[in-house]
């Protein structure tokens, strides 16, 4: 049976004008491959501002005009083209946005959870569903008439989650659901997302917080400089022995000191001809400088590193 979501070799780049009006093409995501199954939570872990959100935008078909996309996305085996994206988004595929900024500042939150309706009947129906979900998350009726700016941090997060659930989706994309939240709210968020899994929904979690990814996901994809360099099961992340990529190892080793956060680091900004991690890699090979490793399957772990390619070929 086909997976709920499959992303194959997705690349996204932008054309921009910089000082003096010179054209500049920048590649944000390169050759990204990932999949999510029903009842599974897959986390994409990468430093903030590295462009991981664009994966979500690409799945939902809301990338800006000056972007160029290559690769393929499949939903339940079907190629997810723009037409299908527009049909499914909001119903089967829903986004849980990262902050209250994603809500219309001048619209009452209950109306936003309900969303656009064709007629009065649909509105009534959805109003009931909205109330049900708000109740589930402990938002009483007084919250319905609030504007986004009147919500507290915890309330806002619940409202944002509710907006995604009114349509009863199969796939949820949570884009940085935790930044700026206090420890208690983070814990609740993690629980809420885990509960979605129990309901059989697939969740793609995009985050820069390792701790959140570790506590929430079943599998974690490490996103580095526009590339997915490793996809591994969450259990293997408990110990740096069990992850393969040198960057993943470094990441786990640095965990306590760095306060569970991925630092900005020195990820190359310009496109490099070889492995993106070449500069910092302790186990680099000569060919890593000029050749790009592919994402390969190494005993069930997806890894982008020449070291494992050779081992793989050898066996």
């Amino acid at each position, binding site marked *: 049976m086909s997976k709920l979501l499959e992303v194959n070799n997705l690349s996204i780049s932008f*054309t*921009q*004008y*910089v*000082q*003096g*009006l*010179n*054209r500049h093409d920048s590649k944000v995501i390169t050759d990204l491959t990932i999949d999510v199954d029903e009842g599974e939570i897959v986390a994409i872990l990468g430093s903030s501002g590295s462009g991981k959100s664009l994966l979500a935008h690409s799945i939902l078909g809301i990338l800006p005009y*000056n972007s160029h996309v290559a690769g393929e996305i499949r939903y339940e085996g079907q190629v997810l083209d723009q037409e299908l994206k527009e049909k499914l988004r909001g119903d089967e595929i829903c986004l849980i946005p990262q902050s209250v900024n994603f809500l219309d500042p001048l619209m009452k939150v209950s109306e936003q959870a309900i969303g656009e309706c064709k007629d009065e009947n649909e509105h009534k129906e959805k109003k009931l569903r909205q109330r049900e979900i708000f109740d589930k998350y402990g938002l009483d009726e007084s919250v319905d008439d609030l504007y986004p700016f009147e919500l507290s941090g915890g309330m806002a997060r619940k409202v944002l989650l509710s907006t995604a659930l009114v349509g009863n989706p199969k796939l949820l994309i949570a884009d940085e659901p935790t930044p700026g939240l206090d420890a208690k709210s983070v814990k609740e968020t993690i629980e809420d997302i885990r509960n979605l899994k129990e309901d059989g929904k697939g969740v793609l979690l995009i985050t820069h917080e390792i701790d959140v990814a570790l506590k929430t996901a079943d599998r974690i994809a490490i996103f580095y400089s526009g590339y997915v360099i490793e996809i591994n099961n969450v259990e293997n992340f408990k110990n740096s022995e069990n992850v393969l990529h040198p960057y993943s190892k470094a990441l786990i080793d640095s965990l306590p000191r760095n306060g569970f956060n991925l630092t900005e680091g020195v990820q190359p900004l310009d496109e490099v001809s070889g492995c993106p991690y070449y500069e910092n890699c302790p186990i680099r090979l000569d060919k890593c400088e000029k050749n790009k490793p592919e994402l390969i399957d190494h005993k069930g772990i997806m890894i982008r590193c020449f070291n494992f390619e050779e081992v793989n070929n050898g066996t």
Partner: protein
Amino acid sequence: MSETPWYNRGLFSTLNLRQKTLLTIALTGLVLVVIFLCGTFIDANLPTDFTARMKPPSFEHIFGTDWMGRDMFIRTIKGLSLSIVIGIGASIISSIIATLLAFLASFNRYCDEFVSWLIDLFASIPHILLIMMISIALGKGAFGVIMAVAFSHWVNLTRVLRAEVLQINTSEYVALSRKFGRSKLWIAKEHILPLVLSQIFVGTLLVFPHAIMHESSVTFLGFGLSPHEPAIGIILSESMSYLAMGAWWLAFFPGLALLIVVLLFDIIGDNLKRLFDPSEANN
């Protein structure tokens, strides 16, 4: 650059956006310089030809002739040239005022409040009325109208510069300079002025179209240049008397020419702004 994107195909397909912007600026600038130079070589006392009075446009007189048989095309060019001179004068003076006030505002809190108050004050009277009043106070004429336009057009640039200066003033190197005991004047001259120079330059150019338009408007109303001057405002105000007779060319062409000149200045200003601030080009 591997592939030509759709928006770069066509006439200037080999140029990138930067080159296109520079080319636009150069071409429009050239047109304006030609108009200006042509105007300066035209004698203010145009030959009158009473045998060719009130002639509609023809190959001989492409803009037609007026009631004294003067060629309207030559009158228009002369008028535009005068408008450009007045526009240059007024925009430069207004930029100087704006710069001085912006620096004054950065001096201390009271100065800043005074400048804000002055901005509010000048924005509280209708523009045209303000220009009329200043022009009357200065005895009308070229001097009056240049000053009037200059003194009514500094507001926007002052706002922009004030914010900019304020921002630079809070930067670390200015704080460092202050620690070294540099005077406020020294900091303004050495640190701030070089940084806002491009904005002053663009700001001056952006005032230009408004200056020309307002000059012709107050002249049209009778509060600007004197009726003896070959100004577009005067030409258009004269044309009012002949409109009912159907002499449409007296008003149409000079006004259109003025519109084109204003538009050209607008284009230069916008393109320069984009060159200095590329964020707009990404849209």
